[in-house]
């Protein structure tokens, strides 16, 4: 697999099918890399890889718990990168983590290490536009796509800037809240998707609260696809094996494909 996240996703979008990006917390189980492979095999267009952090401010209980498990199991950035280096999933891998892990040495070093291991993108939810400048440069230098988040509360002016400065895709939050399955998709989600689509040609993906195949299909109708995290991680915490998680991703894939028809 070559090319940037954005090139890859844009190409996939071109096939007319909504994009699907499932999430896994790196290190949450010893065989987590198998989960990545299972996602890819089940039709994921990219995989979001959570680098666990002790204080995940924007995560709900499910992903908090997954991160807690991974940290307790000794997961480190270095360890994840070593495993990623040997993992060829066939789709782009996008790191998602919090600023504190990114700034440890320097953002340039962090981005370079990610790229060297084969990661193609980066999401840092507590690094909004005004703090992302240096990071965006470092990511660009390393050849990583820095994905920015857009929220229902963002003004049109901010959305314009986010759409312009985001790389890979634009991560549209379905609602005001943390990750997690509970809570309604805000009415603003459709509006947010529409506005972003007006503002940019980049892929726009919805994330947060995509709790079922039906919900995924519905949301994909307002944008280019979805990111699914807590619904998968809850199943994993409840004991699901990579194969079962893959099957769930496949069911999401089917729902998206049918919804798009």
């Amino acid at each position, binding site marked *: 697999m070559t090319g940037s996240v954005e090139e890859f996703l844009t190409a996939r979008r071109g096939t007319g099918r909504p994009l699907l990006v499932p999430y896994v917390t790196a290190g949450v189980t010893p065989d987590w890399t198998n989960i990545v492979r299972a996602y890819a095999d089940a039709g994921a267009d990219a995989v979001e890889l959570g680098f666990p952090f002790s*204080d995940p*401010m924007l995560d709900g209980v499910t992903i908090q718990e997954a991160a807690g498990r991974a940290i307790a199991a000794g997961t480190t950035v270095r360890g994840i990168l070593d495993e990623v280096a040997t993992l060829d999933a066939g789709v782009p891998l996008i790191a998602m983590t919090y*600023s*504190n892990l990114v700034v440890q040495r320097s953002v340039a070093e962090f981005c370079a290490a990610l790229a060297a291991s084969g990661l193609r993108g980066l999401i840092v939810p507590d690094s*909004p*536009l005004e703090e992302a400048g240096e990071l965006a440069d470092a990511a660009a230098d390393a050849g990583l796509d820095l994905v920015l988040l857009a929220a229902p509360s963002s003004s049109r002016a*901010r959305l314009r800037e986010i759409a312009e400065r985001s790389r890979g895709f634009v991560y549209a939050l379905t609602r*005001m*809240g943390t990750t997690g399955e509970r809570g309604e998709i805000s009415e603003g989600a459709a509006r947010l998707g529409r506005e972003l689509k007006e503002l940019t040609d980049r892929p726009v993906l919805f994330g947060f609260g995509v709790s079922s195949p039906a919900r995924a299909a519905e949301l994909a109708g307002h944008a280019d696809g979805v990111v699914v995290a807590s619904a998968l991680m809850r199943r994993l915490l409840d004991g699901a094996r990579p194969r079962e998680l893959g099957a769930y991703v496949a069911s999401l894939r089917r729902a998206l494909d049918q919804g798009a028809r």
Partner: protein
Amino acid sequence: MGEMSWSGRQGVAVPPGARAMGDPGATGRFGGYGGRYVPESLIPACHEIEAAFRAAWGDPEFRGRLDTLLRVYAGRPTPLTPAWRLSRELGITLLLKREDLVHTGSHKINNVVGQALLAHRMGKERLLAETGAGQHGVATATAAALLGLKATVFMGERDIERQELNVLRMNVLGAEVVPVTTGSRTLKDACNEAMRHWVSSVDDSYYCVGSVMGPHPYPWMVREFQRVIGEEARAQCAAELPVGVPDYVVACVGGGSNAAGTFAGFAGTTARLVGVEAEGGAAATFGRAGVLHGFRSLVLQDEHGQVREAHSVAAGLDYPGIGPEHAHLRDGGRARYETVNDDEVVKALLRLARTEGIVAALESSHAVAWVIRAAGSGEIAPGSTVMLTLSGRGDKDIASIKELL
């Protein structure tokens, strides 16, 4: 008592003084620290609060209201009390800025009255707050009751056990206390949880941050609301001391709000500024630069960047970070940061109680412990004058130090 002269001329007007600790600008930066590391969802709220604060802070009517509430409701100005007997024992002149005497029993009320007035002015219905020792939670519940707002306070389960009295006080005041069961179940996790809740309720809720931390404008705004401590103390020193300015200005540091407010009054003077942290939560001494709870600062963390749990006998100092401005003051050498251990702290609490009849909070007793140690070792030269902010009273801690008596 009585060897030290003291005219009792207190409560004099605060002179407009050198404001060395200034406005961090639109980006909220103190040197390389500070900023606004929050999810995009919260950015509009942060902008809104910053704008509202800038407007309010420049509005004489708001300032007048705040001033009136601080005086007529919260009991300001607080006295500057000479620690007569302890001073004699230590061979120095030790002056205590008595934040233990304000309503609810700690400096936290200064900040909360300010923020609650701001939230009220912004039309918010609910105050959210994190709390460690419970003092900030009690202050928030108090201000909410006063202004007819609702209050929801996030508190780590471990702190709920340690500070039961304050939990009950919040209940009596009508606030909802939400136990936080994640992580170390202390202040750090309560902050995370408050942030998470804020994201989902930002329309009608105002996040009332309890120290000089969080995203811009909080560290600056909280310091400005706490500045009253330093400015009063500065004026009281000017009125009472032969030289007008103390040699040392000392305060304990959890997030750092009482210290920041105190230092703000003395930053433009020759006084040496000393912040005292708990050994088990000493971000200024043992921390590395990092990002936590929306700001960049010094953070206690392991080699991999995972934030450590702080450990202190004082729930209010159980915080692995430090306000960004303190990190900046440390780097620039304008303030220094020291640590004391739990044992010294409990001893200091008892010593102050038995020499002066003042039972200080465990948090505040950190500052006392350092002064006792430094005066004993000669690090504070004999005859020096030390102005110490006694950030709160110890009633909340009595039950937990019971076994140590």
